[in-house]
């Protein structure tokens, strides 16, 4: 694959040191098959060890590397350089979470409104055509949502005021409702509370940026209908 010279603009922030935040530029040459996360690792290893970002799986499964790439929330680990238009990549941390340092945000509040308990395992939709094996009763898989926070960052309501529980929590409530209909009173009440789905302004940006096809806006609409019909 061809290599490309790019300017990586990273929003830097260290409380009390690089404060207020500002962009810092690094020039690197990188293979177009590599990703924005690879750019950051290259910069950290070779040019500036002080740069901070989160990452773990490198294949869109953990959700730690979500950031704003040229203005849009994306996962750095699957955003290939070849897909970027032009030769500048501007990187900013997610909005809607308290700043921690550089591209890292404090994610502590992320799960505040998740249903409790919330089971991360679900039935697989890919059932075998014939009878399953003796050893395996049914095939299972993880939830699609990797809890990356991209939808929360893109939401104009979470950005404006902090009291909306946000699209990720509502999608989780929606999923739990599909899996455990017997909990419907509790879950519809949770979603219908003061900080819940009533604050959504239907901008639909959550569904647009979600890298995993969770469609939080659809869950929000469903929960809203259920509350009104209840």
């Amino acid at each position, binding site marked *: *694959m061809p290599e490309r010279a790019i300017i990586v603009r990273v929003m830097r922030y*260290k*409380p*009390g*040191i690089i404060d207020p935040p500002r962009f810092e530029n690094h020039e690197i040459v990188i293979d177009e*098959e*590599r*990703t924005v996360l690879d750019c950051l*690792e290259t910069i950290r*290893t070779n040019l500036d060890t*002080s740069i*901070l970002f*989160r*990452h*773990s*799986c*490198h*294949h*869109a*499964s*953990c*959700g*730690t590397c979500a950031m704003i790439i040229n203005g849009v929330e994306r996962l750095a*680990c*699957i955003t290939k350089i070849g897909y970027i238009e032009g030769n500048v990549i501007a990187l900013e941390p997610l909005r809607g979470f308290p700043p*921690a*340092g550089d591209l*890292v945000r404090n*994610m*502590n*509040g*992320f*799960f*505040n*409104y*998740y249903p409790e*308990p*919330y*089971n*991360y*395992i679900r039935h*697989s939709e*890919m059932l*075998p*055509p*014939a*009878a*399953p*094996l*003796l*050893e*395996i009763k049914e*095939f*299972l*898989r*993880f939830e*699609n949502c990797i809890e990356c926070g991209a939808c929360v960052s893109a939401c104009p309501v979470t950005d404006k005021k902090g*009291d909306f529980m946000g699209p990720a929590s509502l999608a989780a409530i929606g999923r739990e409702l599909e899996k455990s209909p017997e909990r419907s009173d509790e879950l519809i009440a949770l979603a219908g509370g003061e*900080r819940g789905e009533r604050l959504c302004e239907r901008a639909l940006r959550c569904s647009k940026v979600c890298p*995993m096809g969770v469609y939080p806006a659809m869950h929000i609409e469903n929960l809203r209908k259920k509350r009104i019909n209840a």
Partner: protein
Amino acid sequence: MERIVIIGGGGAGAALAHDLVMRGFSVTLIEKGNLFSGTTGRHHGLLHSGARYAVNDPSAARECIEENRILRKIVPGALEQNGGLFVAVDDKDMAYAPLFAEGCAACGIPIRKISPGDALSCEVNLVKSLRFAYIVPDAVMDAWRLPLHFAATARLNGAVISEFTETVGIDVHAGSVNGVRLFDRFRHKEYVLPGDIVVNAAGAWAGRVASLAGLVVPLRPAPGVMVSINARLTNMVINRLHGASEGDIVVPQRRLSILGTTLRLADDPDDTEVRAEDVKKIVEQCAEMIPAIKTQSVHAAWSAARPLIDDPKASNAQAISRTFDCFDHEGDGVNGLITLIGGKATTLRAMAEKTADLICRKTGRDVHCTTREIVLSDYRNTFRREAP
């Protein structure tokens, strides 16, 4: 109780933090990046049944099957428990089968031979010329959320977890460890953290951490490339029925398939080069088991370094055991420093148990390990739920 500092927030460090707080120690876990930004988190996510190692590396195989059974009980929420197949595709694989069956029996790994018809009826994307398959108790873990359950439980029980904090020095006085020097990467400041025992659980970086105390440990970073494709083609983990080799495993997860891997030995743990020829080789080899792989485009390709215990006697890299060990550096003149290396993500709990047992012996504490039974707390508790 003694203050224990664990260097390295990988699976081993997180499991050790959990084990030690349960035994009553006061624990701080130090990680230079975010949790699991080293090798843990980047691996395939295979919860090994041990079958892969049964022939050539029986001690690792036994560790895997034992831990496989324990993790199913204590962290079911981080596992897709769909089993695995070892598939025989050609004559060479057929010839390996008796050795494989014997090895699994000797290690106590339950396997069952199934006909090509049965295998194809559950896994329609397997190669049609399949000879037969063995079903094994493999499973798939969420490589980030499984160890996160250990961190969450440790935190709820009082462990302190410091992310973005790098260990830059180990203070040794009169042959004993006093503590560590840390660099807070948010505040850009160095400080000292006192500790009675320091555990070096820095994975592939353990050589560098040991050198902070002037020591050498037998660690060999061994990077491997993995490839994900944007399609889930099987329900189960698919392994090639042959001796552990390259490009012979497909681990499905959510809507992805993760293909692996390669193996080379390196000196630098940060050497994570992904060569295009490695990606091509992995795709081609895995497509011998699941031809549809070739019709998919590559979604991501990345590399991670195994923290292998170097073995000068091993004839090649594949022959180095995947077992683990903890080294008490008292004999090297640094009392209170322990290095924990090797192992698999599957054996993180066992690595912790062995190290915590050693710490109990060293401190004269007679407290038993309880981590085989304790069901872990939800991984989301790693993030403090803040009052709204």
